[in-house]
């Protein structure tokens, strides 16, 4: 079952807009109420004082989510480190995506970004489930220069092996090839992705940006859409300084963002046994 984790800073008055709630009506939701404390404060101390208030707010939120359609439960965490908490709970509940909660009205059209080194297959199947048979349009977006991940990468493995220029390190190799054959290839892949969604009965269009940074292009494209779906990326030098990309997209586009997680659901039990060996 597809599950989305919605982190909410309940004690700071953060809430979830009705638009995002109805958008998530087709999937299961775990509302993660979190309260971030400065290091002076033991989390247990904050729990003692704020637990009841926070739990009441979370129960209301879960109730509203259930009313919007999907199954919903909630967790409440007191922490010093929001990022660590979100990742841990997302692993534990096996969440397919994280929501960055921002206000929005009724969602009529969603922008789905396939730029960068993301798992397109997971994004597309998430979008299929999310939209379901509702009347929500999808715009597939790919920024220039940003190589689109080959959703059929595993099928192509044999041919890739024969063609070293295209194989080992897609990030570097394709950036060099991009000018020559990349743009036709991108177009084709984007179209293939759109066809896949159309087969599932979704109104899908495509959009490519040819200039400027991938981030700015995405923000420009987000205008006219009510929410953004994007893939999860490894933390980078940039994210270290400016915060993670999804947060910046949410802030700049003034709308909710759904981040499809890369990791497959963890096996029961020890989740951190092999932090680096994902493949």
């Amino acid at each position: 079952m597809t599950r989305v984790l919605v982190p909410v800073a309940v004690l700071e008055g953060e809430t979830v807009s009705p638009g995002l709630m109805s958008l998530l009506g087709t999937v299961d939701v775990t509302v993660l109420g979190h309260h971030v404390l400065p290091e002076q404060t033991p989390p247990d101390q904050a729990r003692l004082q704020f637990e009841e208030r926070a739990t009441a707010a979370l129960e209301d939120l879960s109730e509203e989510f259930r009313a919007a359609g999907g199954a919903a439960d909630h967790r409440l965490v007191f922490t010093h480190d929001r990022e660590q908490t979100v990742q841990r709970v997302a692993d534990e509940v096996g969440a397919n995506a994280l929501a960055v909660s921002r206000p929005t009205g009724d969602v009529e059209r969603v922008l789905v970004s396939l730029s960068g080194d993301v798992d397109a297959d997971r994004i597309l199947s998430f979008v299929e489930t999310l939209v379901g048979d509702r009347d929500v349009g999808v715009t597939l977006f790919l920024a220039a220069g940003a190589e689109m991940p080959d959703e059929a990468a595993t099928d192509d493995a044999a041919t890739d092996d024969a063609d070293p220029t295209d194989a080992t390190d897609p990030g570097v190799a394709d950036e060099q090839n991009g000018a020559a054959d990349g743009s036709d290839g991108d177009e084709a892949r984007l179209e293939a992705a759109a066809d896949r969604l159309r087969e599932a009965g979704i109104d899908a269009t495509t959009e490519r940006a040819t200039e400027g940074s991938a981030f700015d292009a995405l923000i420009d494209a987000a205008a006219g859409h009510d929410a953004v779906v994007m893939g999860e990326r490894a933390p980078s030098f940039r994210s270290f300084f400016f915060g993670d990309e999804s947060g910046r997209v949410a802030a700049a586009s003034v709308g909710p963002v759904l981040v499809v997680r890369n990791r497959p659901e963890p096996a029961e039990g020890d989740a951190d046994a092999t932090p680096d060996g994902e493949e």
Partner: protein
Amino acid sequence: MTDEPSGRNLDGDAPVAEAVVETEEATITEDAELERTIGLTGGLAIGIGTMIGAGIFVFPGLAGGEIGTAASASFAVGGVIALLVALPTSELATAMPRSGGGYYFISRGLGTLAGTVIGLSLWLGLVFATAFYLVGLGYYALDALAQVGVTVGASSEAIVSAIAVLAGVAFTVLNVTGTENAAKLQNGIVALLLSMLTAFLGFGLLEAFGVIAVDTPPGQAADVWEAVPILSVAALVFTSYLGFAQVATVAGEMKDPGRNLPLAMVGSVVIVTVMYVLTIFVATNIFTRDTLLASGETAMVEVGRALLGPAGALVIIVGGLLATMSSANASILSTSRAIYGVSKDALLPRWASRINLRYGTPHVALGMAGGPVVVLAATGQVQLLAEVASFLHLIMYGLMCVALVAIRRDRPEWYDPDFVVPGGPVIPVLGALASFGLIAFMDRLSIGVGAAVIAVTAGWYFYYARDVELKGAL
């Protein structure tokens, strides 16, 4: 043996208790989870960061001034005692990874009276220690002023007190209003200090063994290699080891506590002991004890100057400022956790652990830490503050060792430590004897002040919390 604390205090509050599940990553209560966010590095930084300020930057002058190179032995004795206590503390902490540290173990192992006395003495002991660090900070700030050409002449002690008071107020205000996470900064400061010291000590050792030579001022006073003075200095400098148990006050926030708590506590003791012994060795090798005595709290600045010229003096001044600040700050953080642990068990009024929603900080507890710190810092009494802090901590350390023996004997159902001290009761018994024994070598005035504090805390128990029952509960 009951598993639940019971009874009510004078205000009619009962201890807060409920069943929780501890995992490596979080504590899971009925309705909420508490994330564990401090790793091994963070734990070591708390331990080392609390300890290193005093031992390296304040005591070499005082201790070396009294007995010369023999002070290395005093620091070694202190390190061994600290290790004897750190091992039993580790076992208790892995069995009860909760906020409150030593207080929690003693109240569960030895009952409410001992718990109240230790809980409140831990708070006040930390207050004395923090005041001591701040006075040390004042001396380094004064030296820094002198370095840039500002001399204050005769009233230097008043200036030191004034700087200590200002710093105490500033730290309290910053801790109440500061919501930025300073943990990374603390880790960075500790790493910087360790690398500065390693370079400095490496150079000093080369000099000591005659590989390189610098001019050392002449002096006649010989080293005092006698047991009683060595132990008496050990009692004084034991304040330099008061950080390892502070790691236990954040036990509830430590990731993988079964592994990281013992490593952080024992590791920080071993690291600082080596640093201390080497520092004293280098300092007393360059200066004889009368020269050290003359330069007092900031003798290390002169050592730095003799070794490396003005640059060496500057390195030590910057290091001293950073180290005393990090010690003071880490202690204030531990204090608010100590108060919270006691207040949660209804031994102090519940309002003592209130948090304000605006900053998310425990302003009452921080005020209860910062207020008395400022008053004590104003006295400027380095030795007295240090010894009273040591006295109160040594009582706690001794009782923690006793608590370990008691709790092992009683074996409550929940007692299942990840880390077990080897050798049966040998180490805890030695730790208790050494802790209580060291007190005998302290100054009479310090013992008197410490005993008065203990008497007041015991009085508080009989007045406020006589009916609260904590022994054997989880």
